[in-house]
């Protein structure tokens, strides 16, 4: 297959699918031309030592090139490399290729419109880990948005449907993650938008990761009015239970790894 996209899961080796591992090992064996952005390269280095992964990080540092343009260029370049240059191309992505990944979406569209075959190897999504600490029944559906969409793009949540808001930390319009100290501004804006439709005492749950090496799913339940009282890690998420929804959806679930909770 000239072009393969492999999802490497959210962080831990145990979350990489058997299929993804097989494709990584095959890519190493046949000397495929492998590309990846920073997180994916780090993961591949741990998973398949010796697999050369070409960096695409230059796209993040070109002056005047915002993330949408960078992802468009990346997609076109990989499709060109595979189908015009005739090379065996593998593109590694963190998490699932199907969740909030503009470059993958563009590659899929380009391949579809041009009649190119594309192999996509699924990966565990960050959503799986995030939902680990809540009880989502699914009875009222689910709203999935970036915090930016809600706080700054005017997306109005339906209070009768639970919502998962991702990338809660402060990001630039171009998609650059800022450090956690900058999260307060986003939290303030998000809180104020949510307070238009939810009562101040409405429970919300902050969901985030402990980071290296265990990447434990951590959570903290608090009233909406207190959302902006502290900072949160860059890659945090917010669970907003439905107003009048199942009571269980407003609870913080214990860690699924069986270990003691360490918020």
């Amino acid at each position, binding site marked *: 297959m000239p072009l393969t996209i492999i999802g490497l899961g959210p962080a831990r080796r145990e979350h990489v699918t058997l299929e993804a591992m097989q494709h990584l090992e095959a890519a190493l064996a046949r000397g495929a031309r492998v590309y990846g952005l920073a997180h994916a390269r780090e993961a591949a280095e741990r998973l398949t030592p010796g697999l050369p992964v070409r960096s695409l990080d230059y*796209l993040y540092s070109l002056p*005047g*090139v915002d993330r949408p*343009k960078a992802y468009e*260029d990346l997609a076109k*370049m990989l499709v*060109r490399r595979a189908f015009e240059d*005739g090379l065996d191309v593998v593109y590694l992505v963190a998490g699932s290729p199907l969740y909030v990944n503009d470059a993958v979406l563009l590659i899929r569209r380009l391949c579809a419109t041009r009649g190119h075959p594309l192999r996509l190897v699924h990966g565990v999504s960050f959503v799986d880990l995030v939902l680990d600490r809540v009880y989502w029944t699914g009875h009222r559906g689910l709203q999935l948005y970036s915090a930016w969409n809600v706080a700054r793009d005017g997306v109005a949540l339906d209070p009768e449907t639970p919502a998962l808001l991702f990338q809660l930390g402060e990001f630039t319009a171009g998609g650059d993650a800022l450090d956690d100290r900058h999260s307060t501004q986003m939290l303030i804006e998000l809180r104020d938008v949510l307070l238009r439709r939810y009562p101040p005492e409405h429970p919300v749950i902050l969901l985030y990761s402990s980071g290296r090496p265990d990447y434990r799913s951590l959570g903290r339940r608090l009233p909406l009015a207190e959302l902006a009282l502290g900072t949160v890690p860059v890659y945090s998420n917010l669970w907003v239970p439905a107003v009048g929804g199942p009571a269980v959806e407003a609870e913080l679930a214990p860690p699924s790894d069986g270990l003691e909770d360490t918020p």
Partner: protein
Amino acid sequence: MSLVLRPVGPYLTGAAEAPGEINLSVRLREGLFTSAALRGELRAALGDQLRAALAEGDGEAAASLLVAWVQTWALAAMVDEARARWTQRPDGAALAVLVAAAEIVAQAKGWPMGADGRWPEPEADWVLEALQGAQPEAVVQRHPDDGAEALAARLGLPLVQGAPLPLPPIVSIPGEALAPRRAELCGAVARGELAAVRLTSPPPDDLATRLAWGELT
């Protein structure tokens, strides 16, 4: 053919001079790409030119000469090690130092750059001195851009073809051609058909060129 002459180009050689040849690239390297030359004759020549430019009120030339003159200190500290490494194996860091030194040599000596634009083309007096009385019978050409034709014409010697140098394939283009030829050039590099793309002029500072440059490098 008992004695042949090899020109400076197409690159500053890292090899030793072989029996039966006078290799101007080796003699240039050993004579001028040295700490002693940079501290001595090259710095002195630049100083003289700088004083002359100031006396003539030529600020533009003076600024350029001042930069070159100042650089002789840094380069003098690095060039011997770079030259030694370059004679052992291809070395990117050493090459960067030698390229910087080449610009100083050309400026101090008032020599033009050679056919490939990267290495100074010594004037006839220096070449004759470098020959040390030897009388080569021909100039050997091993690369289209090695400057052999001009050297042969200057010395009135016949040009003979030597074994082509096994250089990696590169292409030279003006900077403004980078974006329009991005797909072709990057594809050739990716397929291993091209080792490098040489820009003969600064690339424009536009989005398409930045993206092409990013992919290429």
